C-alpha cells in the first residue's frame, strides 16, 4: 500500500492550474435538446415520482401547457464537473451552488459556457493537502435567456496520500435487516407530492420539516441509468483519443495491464480503492438532484426553486441508503417575491450526514397576484 503510484499535489502544480482560471473550457455536452425522452428519462433516473416532470397527459392541464423538466436536468447539458489541470490527481465532486432563473421546457435547446473560477489549497483528514477547484457553468436556452448558473466544487485529492491514510477503509458493508428493507419500502410508498395543491407562503411555518424522501439502497442499475444519461462514457477508440490528449487520466488495471477510466470506480470497488474509497460510490451529482427532488415535491407545481446549494461531505457507497431531509429555516418578502429558506441534507442508514445545503424557494402568496413566481413579465 505504501508504493508511489500517482503524483503528489505540489504547490507548483496548483500554481500551474491557476493559469486556467477564467479560460473558457472545452466541454462535451451529452445532450443538446430537452426532448421528451430526455426529460422523462432524467426524472426516472433520479427516482422522481412527480407527474409534472413525467407525464405528457398532464401537460394539457399544467400551467406550462407543455412538459416541464426537473431543474437539475441541466446536469445533462453540462454535469458541472469542472476539474481542469492537475494531471494524475484524483477529482471528487464536492457540490454545487445552483441558481435557477427560468423553467426548462420541452424542446428547449441548451448551450453552456464553463470556466474555472478559483483553485484553493485545502487540508482534510481524507488525504491531507488537497485542492478545491471552483468552476462556473452558465446555461442559456434557444431564446438566449439565461436559464441557470451553477458554481461547482471539485476536490482534487492525491491518490497515494488518500490510500495511505485510509480514512474510510474500516467501513464494512451494511447488512440490512428485513425490517429495515421494509421501512425503506414504506418510505417509498409514503412519498408526498403536492402537485397542484399550492404551498402557500402564508401557510409555511419556520421550523416545519419537509416530508423526507428515500433514495436507495444505491444499486449499480441506479448508476447505469444516471451516469448513462448525465455523462455517458468514452467508448473504445473515443477513450483512446481521450487518453492521447490526457495520458495521465487513466487507471491501469494491475491484473490485465489494460487502461481503464476512473469512472469505473462508480461500479468497481478495486478502482475506488486506488484513491482511498473502500467501495464503488455514487457520482455525487446524484445527491444534488435528489435534494432538488425533495424540494420540488414539497413546493408544489406553483413554486419555483430559485437556488440550491449543496456540499457533499461524505461518500455515498453502493448499497447505502440516502434519506433526503429538509426544514424551513426562514421566510421573507423581497422584490415582490414570497420566499422561504430551507435547510436540506442527506443522511445515510448509518445516521451519517453525507451532504448538506440550503435552498431558496419562491412560493405563491394568498395576498398578491395570482401569477406564480416563475412567470416572467415583459
Amino acid at each position: 500500500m505504501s508504493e508511489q503510484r500517482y503524483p503528489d499535489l505540489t504547490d507548483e502544480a496548483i500554481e500551474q492550474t491557476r493559469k486556467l482560471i477564467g479560460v473558457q473550457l472545452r466541454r462535451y455536452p451529452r445532450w443538446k435538446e430537452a426532448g421528451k425522452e430526455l426529460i422523462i428519462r432524467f426524472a426516472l433516473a433520479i427516482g422522481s415520482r412527480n407527474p409534472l416532470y413525467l407525464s405528457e397527459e398532464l401537460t394539457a392541464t399544467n400551467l406550462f401547457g407543455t412538459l416541464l423538466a426537473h431543474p437539475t436536468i441541466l446536469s445533462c447539458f453540462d454535469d458541472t464537473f469542472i476539474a481542469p489541470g492537475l494531471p494524475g490527481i484524483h477529482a471528487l465532486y464536492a457540490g454545487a451552488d445552483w441558481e435557477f432563473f427560468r423553467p426548462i421546457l420541452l424542446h428547449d435547446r441548451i448551450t453552456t459556457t464553463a470556466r474555472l473560477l478559483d483553485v484553493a489549497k485545502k487540508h482534510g483528514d481524507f488525504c491531507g493537502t488537497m485542492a478545491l477547484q471552483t468552476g462556473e457553468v452558465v446555461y442559456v436556452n434557444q431564446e438566449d435567456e439565461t436559464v441557470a448558473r451553477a458554481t461547482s466544487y471539485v476536490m482534487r485529492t492525491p491518490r497515494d496520500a488518500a490510500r495511505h491514510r485510509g480514512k474510510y477503509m474500516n467501513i464494512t458493508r451494511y447488512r440490512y435487516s428485513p425490517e429495515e428493507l421494509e421501512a425503506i419500502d414504506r418510505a417509498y410508498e409514503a412519498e408526498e407530492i403536492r402537485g397542484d395543491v399550492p404551498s402557500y407562503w402564508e401557510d409555511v411555518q419556520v421550523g416545519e420539516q419537509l416530508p423526507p424522501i428515500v433514495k436507495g439502497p444505491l444499486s449499480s442499475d441506479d448508476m447505469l441509468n444516471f451516469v448513462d444519461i448525465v455523462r455517458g462514457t468514452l467508448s473504445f477508440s473515443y477513450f483512446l483519443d481521450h487518453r492521447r490528449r490526457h495520458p495521465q487520466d487513466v487507471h491501469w488495471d494491475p491484473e490485465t495491464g489494460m487502461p481503464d477510466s476512473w469512472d469505473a470506480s462508480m461500479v468497481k470497488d478495486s478502482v475506488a480503492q486506488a484513491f482511498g474509497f473502500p467501495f464503488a460510490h455514487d457520482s455525487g451529482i446524484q445527491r444534488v438532484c435528489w435534494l432538488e427532488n425533495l424540494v420540488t415535491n414539497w413546493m408544489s407545481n406553483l413554486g419555483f426553486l430559485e437556488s440550491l446549494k449543496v456540499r457533499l461531505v461524505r461518500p455515498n457507497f453502493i448499497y447505502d441508503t440516502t434519506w433526503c431531509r429538509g426544514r424551513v429555516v426562514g421566510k421573507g418578502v423581497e422584490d415582490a417575491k414570497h420566499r422561504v429558506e430551507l435547510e436540506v441534507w442527506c443522511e445515510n442508514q448509518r445516521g451519517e450526514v453525507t451532504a448538506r445545503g440550503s435552498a431558496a424557494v419562491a412560493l405563491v402568496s394568498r395576498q398578491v397576484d395570482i401569477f406564480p413566481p416563475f412567470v416572467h413579465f415583459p
Partner: protein
Amino acid sequence: MTTSESSTYGQITQEGLQRIRDRLGVYYHGIRHVGEITADAIRTYAQGMGERNPLFFDEEYGRKSPYGSIIATPIFLWTVRAITATNLGGLPGVHSFYGGSEWEYYRPVRPGDIISATYRPHDVVEKSSTYAGRMAIQYAQTLYVDHRANAVAKARAWSIRTERRAARERDRFRDVKKPRYTREDLEAIWDAYDREEIGGATPRYWEDVQEGESLPPIVRGPLRVVEIIFGAGRFDAFNTGVGASPGGNHYYRWSSFRKHLGFAEPDPETGVPDHPHRGHWEETMARLIALPGIYDLGPQRGSWLAQIVTNWMSDHAFVRRFYHELRRFNIEGDTTWVHGKVSRKWIEGDQHLVECETNCQNQRGETTGMGRVEVILPSRGAE
C-alpha cells in the same frame, strides 16, 4: 421483499414453460414514451457502441449525406424496446442471456421519427448446454412502426434461459484466465483503431464488389466495465424495472421487485434485492452465474458485426437485413477482432444486393459472434 421460497424457484420446469407457451401469440406494446427519436439519442447510442461513422452522429455531415440527415445505426432500434420478451415472466429466478436477433429494415430511422414497438412472443424451445445443462430458448417478434403508420423494421430475437445453480455446479469456465496485456499487445490494438476506415461519401458501387472479398477488420477492446454499464446500457434504461413497470431508479425498481417477487437476486453481503442483469458489471453476480468475469451486453457485440459492414459500404448504401448470433461470452478485458467478407452478390428487381458474413474473434482465438448483413448498394447502371 424476500425472494420466493418456492421449491421450483430458479428451475426450468414444465409448468414454467407452459406459462410461457400460454403467452405465445399475444401482442405486447412497448413503452410509449421512448418512441421519440432525437439526434441526441442516435448520436450517444452510436458512440457508445464505438461507432466512428459520422453518418450516425454528426448532424452537419448528415445534412450533406445522401440521406439528408443523420440516420440511426442498424442496432439502434434496441433503444426503443428490448425485444427478447423474457420480462413477461414464467420462469422466475432462471437466468436470461441475449442470444441474438434477426432484423429486416424498411426505411432509415431519422431524428424526429416517433416509433412504437409491439412484440409478440412466438416460441419456446428446450435445449441443453455444456454451460448449465437444461436450457430454454425464448423467441419473440417485434414490429416497429412510425408515426405515419409506416413499417420501419421487423425483428426476431431470442434469449437463452439457464439455471444459475446448474451453471455454478458445472463451473464450465473455471479455467478461463483474465488476459494479460503487454505494451506491444496494446499498441497493436491502438494501431488497428487508427487504421479503421470509414467508407463515407464515396459510393461503393455494386459492380466494383467481388464475391469473397474481405472487409477491412475492426477491433473493439479490451472491453472495459464503463463501456458495458455507461456505454451500452441504453436499451435497458427503461426496462430495468421488470414486468409492467416503466423502469427508472430507486422507487421504480424497488416497487417492481416487490411486485415480481423472485425476480431480484439479493446481494449476498447486504441482503439488498437487486437486478440479476448486474452480472454484466458486478463480479459478485457474475460469480453467481459461474462466469469468469463481468460480460458485455449482447447488442453491443451485435452492433460490431454490422459496423464492419456499414464502415465499408459508404453512405450511399442501406442495410436491408441483419442477423447476428452470439457465441460464448465477451468478458471484461477481452479484445474483439471483427472480420468479414462479401459472401454473395445478386440482383433482386431493381435492387443491387450483397451479403456480408462477419464474425467476432477474441484474443484467445475463440469465435464469439457471427453476423450476416444484407446491403443494398448503388449501381453504376442505375444512374
